[in-house]
Every structure is written in C-alpha cells, then in structure tokens.
C-alpha cells in the first residue's frame, strides 16, 4: 500500500465536531409534513472549520496548474488566465443576479451578452450566435441539431451520414452519433490534410455535412480547405467547424468567410476561462445566414429600439424555427461569458491577432528546437500546436514515460496518445502566454530526457520521482473502478 499523504474528509470526521453554530430559530416551529421523506443516515463529515481549511489547503499543494508553471497540454489551450477576469465576474451586479429576474432589472447583464454575441460574430464571420451551450461538446451537439433541422425543413430526409476526418477531435463523431447519424471517417493524406480523393468518394446526397477541426489535431491548417468545403457543399452538405483550435486563427482567418455554416467556440480555451478537471466550459455556437432561424432560443436581442430619450431595452428573442432550449438558463454567465467578455475587451482586435500570432510562433519555435531529437511525422510549419513521436529506435521508452519524466522537471506533460494517427503521440501546445525562457527550458528538458532514454531508461520508466505520488497504476485504476467513497452498511442486501 502506498503511504497515505492525507486522509479523505470522511476519514477526518469525528462525531460532534462542527464548523458553524446555527443561530436560534426566529420563526415559529411547525411539524414536518412527512417524516418519511427525511433520512438520518447520510454520513456527512463533521469537522471544525480550521480542519476543513487545512485539509483542502494541503490537497491544493499536491496540485499543478497554469498558475504553477508551463502546461503544454495539446488541444486544451492551457493559457494563463488573467486575474482581472476574477474581479469582473465577481462584480456585485453580475454576481447577485438571477436568470429569472425581470429583464428591466438586469439590463447590464443582457448588454454584456448581446455585445459578446456581436463580438463573437465579428471574430468568426458568422451571421448568428447562441451563448447557451455549456461546453464544447454541448456546442457540437447544438450545431449538429441545427444541421439536421435545416435538412428536415427542406424535406431532405435521406441525409444520415456525417463525414469526419481522422484528425478531428474525438467529440465530433460522438456528437454526430448522439443524433443517430452514421459517421464516415475520412483519412488524412501524407501532409496531414483531408484526403481529397477519399472525401470526393464519400460525398453523395446522403451526407448531412462534414465536421472539420481546422487547424486539426496535428496542428496543421488544411492546405485544401476551400476544395474540401466545395466538395461537401456541392453534394448538399453543411460544413461544421470545430472551434476548439481557434486560438491559432484570431484576426487572421474567419471560418464564416471560408464557407463554414456552423462553429462552436470554446471560450474556456481561446478566451481565458479557467478550465480543466471537467469544467466550467462555455461553448457558444455561430451559424451562417442559412441557419440563423434554427438557433436555440432564447437569444439576447433588442426588444425595444432606442429613441431620443431612452436607451434600447435588451431582452430575449426566439428564432423562427428554433431547435429550442439547450440549457435551463442562458449559458455559463459569470463563469464563462463575463470572463471572455473581459478578455476580448482587454485585448481588442489587434491584441487578439497578436495572441494567435504568438501562439503559432511559440509552437513553431518549440517544434524547430525539438526537430532532430524527436521524430515529427507531419513535419511542416504548424499552427498553435504540433505532434511529436515519444519513441526512439532501439529503445523501450514510450510516450508515457517521457510525459511522466517531464513532471520531474516541473512541467505538466503534453497530451499523449492523441491523435491516434501518430504512434506514441506527444501533442504539444505552448500557447502565447509563455516567454522564450520557459520554452527554452522546456525544450532543454525534452532533449535531456531523450538522452536519458538512451543512458538511463529506468529513470523514465519509474518517473515521476519528485511528485507526492510516483507512477500511478493506470491499468488497475481503469479495471478496478471504485465509484463511491463508502458503501452503505446493508450494501450486500441491496445488490
């Protein structure tokens, strides 16, 4: 058994300890309506406030975040999140409002949402925008629903196929599958582009559309994007853009101008909303003119125009053929929308363009430094990320070993084993927020690790050495799932 560095909060519990003292009741006592609805067997932990604070403080020190150091987790855009976002999203006017308040009392919130919709439209070149989806994959689902609604509205019922390149994000086929569509995988060519011949062969009148991640998961901008879009459109399909990699394109290319019909944003990646560990995300979706009537409802709009004496009244509007509501309220308002609004207004158009140019420059700088030490299977100018192979001829060192060893150098490992089309993939995305010194230190560490792989491979196999816990047994963790922290006493009789 490994050493337990900190027990769980349940193990720290001691009956009778308490963190708060409830004040005496200042309302009349009444009997409970139904005693049977209450239960007394919930094993809630009992601790003093100081013990709770120390417990979580201790756990937080085992953590590693973008505030600790470099976090080149490919495809996740782990940029530094400016702390001013934390101030703005806690402004009392945003923090203490409720989504069901009368619109007259939340005009500030609605203006922020309206302007964010307009800015995202301008950034992406789309005609309409919803802020509702809770995260990227939810945005995909929303987008694919609109594609299906579009075909259905035209009486075009035989379209059931979604085309998806093998260099796409894994959520793309999942989103199409959720709607019962069949997924047709389109291979990549030797330069990491969509294979045009394979695409042409798959295009027919049963195609709903194509979901493209561009730049793709190899960090490559598709050199034939216009031909790809033309092929799909010529067979009546719609183009879906996965905007997860938008950090490479701000102020440079607008997917709407290229001919995409739908795209989701990941505000938590591109626009500096802290993320990881499952949330919070925010996945607005933009659409071209032919899909605006299908957008989810409600959208934020102007419900009464301004006149000489009064400002416009902002409220909610419903698109004509809306697919309906995608979320109980209006999106992740404080968590995602206020932070993204802050970030965009802080940078402005030129600043956003700088972000993408530095993100691409940083990735290419790292790629150039590592080329020669690591095999780069699709080796050309990359966008915001690139993929190297974490293996060496004649060595049993694998990508996982290299990733774990990086932790000993105080770096978060890159994404590994994705995309699947690269053997032992190490997917590296430095983002624009890192300076040259950090990039140099990271490249030096990877070059040193490559040397260690030859001279002391056991150092890599046993890594990490300096973390609170060493190498975790991923296989055991996946095979022997423990999904709850305690079992009820009568568990055996329940099953």
């Amino acid at each position, binding site marked *: 058994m490994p050493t337990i560095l900190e027990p769980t909060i349940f193990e720290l519990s001691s009956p009778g300890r308490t963190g708060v003292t409830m004040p005496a009741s200042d309302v009349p006592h009444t009997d409970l309506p139904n005693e049977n609805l209450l239960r007394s067997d919930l094993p809630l932990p009992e601790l003093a406030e100081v013990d709770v604070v120390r417990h979580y403080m201790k756990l937080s020190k085992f953590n590693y975040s973008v505030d600790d150091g470099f976090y080149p987790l490919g495809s996740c855009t782990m940029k530094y999140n400016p702390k001013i976002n934390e101030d703005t999203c806690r402004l009392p006017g945003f923090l203490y409002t409720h989504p069901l308040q009368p619109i007259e009392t939340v005009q500030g919130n609605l203006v922020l949402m309206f302007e964010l919709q307009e800015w995202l439209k301008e950034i992406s070149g789309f005609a309409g925008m919803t802020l509702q989806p809770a995260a990227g994959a939810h945005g995909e689902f929303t987008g694919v629903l609109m594609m299906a609604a579009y075909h259905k509205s035209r009486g075009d019922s035989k379209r059931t196929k979604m085309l998806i390149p093998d260099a796409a994000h894994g959520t793309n086929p999942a989103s199409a599958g959720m709607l019962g569509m069949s997924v047709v995988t389109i291979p990549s060519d030797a330069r990491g582009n969509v294979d045009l011949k394979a695409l042409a062969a798959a295009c027919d009148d049963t195609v709903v559309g194509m979901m493209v991640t561009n730049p793709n998961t190899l960090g490559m901008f598709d050199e034939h994007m216009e031909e790809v879009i033309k092929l799909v459109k010529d067979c009546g399909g719609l183009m879906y853009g996965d905007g997860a990699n938008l950090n490479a394109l701000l102020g440079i290319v607008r997917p709407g101008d290229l001919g995409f019909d739908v795209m989701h944003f990941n505000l938590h990646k591109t626009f500096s909303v802290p993320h990881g560990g499952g949330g919070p995300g925010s996945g607005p979706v933009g659409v071209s003119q032919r899909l605006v009537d299908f957008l989810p409802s409600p959208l934020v709009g102007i419900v009464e125009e301004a006149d000489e004496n009064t400002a416009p009244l902002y409220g909610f509007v419903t698109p004509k053929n809306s697919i309906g509501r995608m979320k109980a309220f209006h999106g992740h308002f404080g968590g995602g929308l206020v932070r993204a609004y802050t970030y965009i207004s802080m940078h402005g158009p030129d600043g956003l363009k700088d972000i993408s140019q530095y993100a691409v420059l940083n990735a290419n700088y790292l790629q150039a430094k590592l080329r020669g030490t690591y095999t780069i299977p699709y080796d050309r100018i990359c966008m915001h990320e690139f993929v190297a*192979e974490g293996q060496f001829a004649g060595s049993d060192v694998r990508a996982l070993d290299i990733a774990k060893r990086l932790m000993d150098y105080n770096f978060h490992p890159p994404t590994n*084993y994705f995309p*699947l089309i690269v*053997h032992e993939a190490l997917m590296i995305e430095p983002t624009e927020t890192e300076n040259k010194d950090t990039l140099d230190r990271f490249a030096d560490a990877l070059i040193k690790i490559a040397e260690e792989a030859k001279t002391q491979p056991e150092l890599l196999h046993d890594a990490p050495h300096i973390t609170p816990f060493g190498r975790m047994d*991923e*296989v055991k963790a*996946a*095979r022997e799932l423990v999904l709850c922290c305690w079992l009820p006493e009568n568990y055996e009789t329940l099953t």
Partner: protein
Amino acid sequence: MNVPSNLKYTKSDEWFDPSSGAVGISDFAQSQLSDIVFVEILVEEGEEVTVGKAIASVESVKASAEIYAPVAGKVSAVNKGLPDKPEILNSDPFGEGWMIKIEGSAGSEMMDAAAYEQDCAGRAH
C-alpha cells in the same frame, strides 16, 4: 509477434478461425492497444452479422477501438466471460480471448498469416 498460421486476418486486425468460426483480435492489435481495461460485445447469439459490422468495443489505457465482423453469418456463440476479464485479450488473444463465433467462411479479401505479418510490418513504425 505471434501470428498463428491456421487463421485468417483482416487489415483492421481481427482474426477468424475457419475451422471453429471463432473471431478475435490479433497479437499485433493487443500490443498496439497496450493494457486492455474494458471490452463489450455488441452482438448476441443467433444474430446475423455482415462483414464490417461492429461486434465489440475495446478500450485500453491509450485508446478505444471497435472490432468488426471479419465474415458474414450467424453468431453461434459469444464469449460471455470476456467482459469480466479484459486482460485475457492481452495475455491470450488467440485462445481464451476469442470474442464470438460466426457460422461463415473467410472471403478472398482476408489475409493468410504471411500476408498479415507483412501488412503489420508495413504499419509498425
């Protein structure tokens, strides 16, 4: 790499035993996937399958993969114990790791052991 000569193989790494009708994944496939932690068989006994139909889903710590029917025919048996012991796919892919049995025969597109070995060599990197 183990490639039994009595079996037929697909480009997507399934094997088919013409004498017993058993279907599984090759030694090459299990080594590429690494430690397999989950397997679900997607077809039932008595079901008719066509070539290329997804018959099982396999997950390792690195990746997940669908396993496709290498031949068409009726499913005559399902290895019901396999989902409880996915690690058998790593330790004995051609024996205890069989997934289903299909009453069918190998088409001409299936490879013999020598051709499959060559195909794998071309993909290994």
